[in-house]
């Protein structure tokens, strides 16, 4: 009996060794993804210089070119001053310390590239190109439309705080997720992907 058990276990061990000795390649976003239709609703123009009325808070984000459609939760800062991240990988969040999308300044929106097991809401963010449209729905039902200007990748150890969070004189967006190489020892990616967009 024990002999039989011993043989089975040893056989299982050997089989396991043979079957799992290969590496898993990176899961790459599918470039051919069916785009979403553009959201409908009243599109609000970029702010005038004498804009007095505050714009409504953002509630949802749609990026048709990469099939992203998500509500926007609120994010703050952690105790150490870093940007909070959504607790689920299926939604994106707006940093409430940044301007509301459609107000002067850089509105910060953040989402996960992946979970432990698979793609997250911003998995395809790095596929965006200059000219792609980003739609932010606000609490009053209006839409602010942004045009992607550039997609950058930065090492987190050399994160350009001024370029990403610094003040600008017009209404802009920063969409941020992780990218670059994944460090298994740290359990995190080494870089951030930042998409810059300007309201149109």
């Amino acid at each position, binding site marked *: 009996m*024990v002999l039989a058990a011993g043989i089975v276990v040893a056989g299982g*061990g*050997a089989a396991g060794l043979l079957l799992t000795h290969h*590496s898993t390649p990176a899961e790459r976003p599918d470039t051919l993804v069916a785009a979403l239709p553009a959201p409908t609703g009243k599109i609000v123009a970029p702010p005038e210089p*004498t804009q007095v009325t505050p714009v409504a808070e953002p509630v949802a984000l749609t990026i048709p070119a990469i099939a992203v459609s998500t509500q926007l939760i609120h994010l703050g800062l952690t105790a150490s001053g870093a940007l909070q991240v959504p607790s689920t990988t299926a939604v994106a969040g707006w940093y409430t310390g940044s301007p509301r999308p459609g107000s002067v300044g850089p509105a910060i929106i953040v989402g996960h590239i992946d979970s432990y097991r698979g793609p997250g809401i911003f998995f395809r963010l790095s596929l965006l190109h200059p000219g792609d449209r980003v739609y932010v729905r606000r609490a009053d039902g209006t839409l602010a439309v942004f045009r992607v200007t550039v997609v950058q990748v*930065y090492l987190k150890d050399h994160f350009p705080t001024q370029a990403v969070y610094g003040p600008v004189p017009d209404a802009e967006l920063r969409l941020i997720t992780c990218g670059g190489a994944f460090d298994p020892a740290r359990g995190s990616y080494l870089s951030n992907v930042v998409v810059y967009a*300007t309201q149109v």
Partner: protein
Amino acid sequence: MTIRTITRRTVMLMAVSALCLGGTAAASASAATTSAGTSSARSAAATSDDGWIRLAHLSPNTPAVDVYLYSFGVSTAFQVLRHVSYGTVSAYEPLAAGVYSVAMRAAGAGPTTAAVLSTSVTIQAGHAYTVAGMGPESGLRLAVLDDTLTTPPGQALVRVIQASLQQHSVNVSFGGQVLQNGLLFGEVSSYQAVTPGSEAVVVTDASGGGDANASMSLAAGTVHTLVVLDGAHGLEVVDLVDASGDAADPVGGVSTGFGGTAPHGPPSPLLWLLATATGAALAMAAGLRLRTTRRQTLKRT
């Protein structure tokens, strides 16, 4: 024609960032030239070499003008703002860093008419400028103002442009904070750091009367320009938001990934080796015991 005719945003980035890996480097803005029409179709792709410019007419007794924007040395304007009248300030427009010319002509006068005013502007990447026609008509001039975009942490910045001819000297306060005392017509004050809040802005003339009132919300990290104007019924004050950043800048990058889609090396074989070894040991031990038992059995018979 409204000031929104030049709010055709193309691209911009802030100052060059230290490390940009694999960014999509796109062609720099090329100026399409047009001598007629309002805003040109500047379908420029993003660069990190853009600054911003806005234009203002702040001379109370000067009629409306057409404002022409040229790349320096080019004789055809790439953009024309038509019928810009006193009190008009356009939104910021991004332009690639470089040298430009601004010319103001009487509204409707046509591009070959002698310009009433002209000046050159050097735009640096990441900087913003206001080009304003200022002063009385008899002493009209184009001022190129360097606009600050960044505030001290937790504060707002406010400057005042005095463009009222009726009141030669004005005092400006924001709630209990005095912003300017005795600011003269045509003067642009320096930036004042102001405690953020929602307060009344009060502008009074030298005698303490003739005031203009507006309530203003100053958020931390924002830069404002207040413009004192001659309105239809006396002094008016207009609040321009020049720039806005974050209330507090986050520290460092963002942790937005768990590695589920990252490539994985082969998992550690330890577990499987352990299983194989254990199994082999068990089998050997069992086999030995079987042999011993059988020998004993054989011996007995």
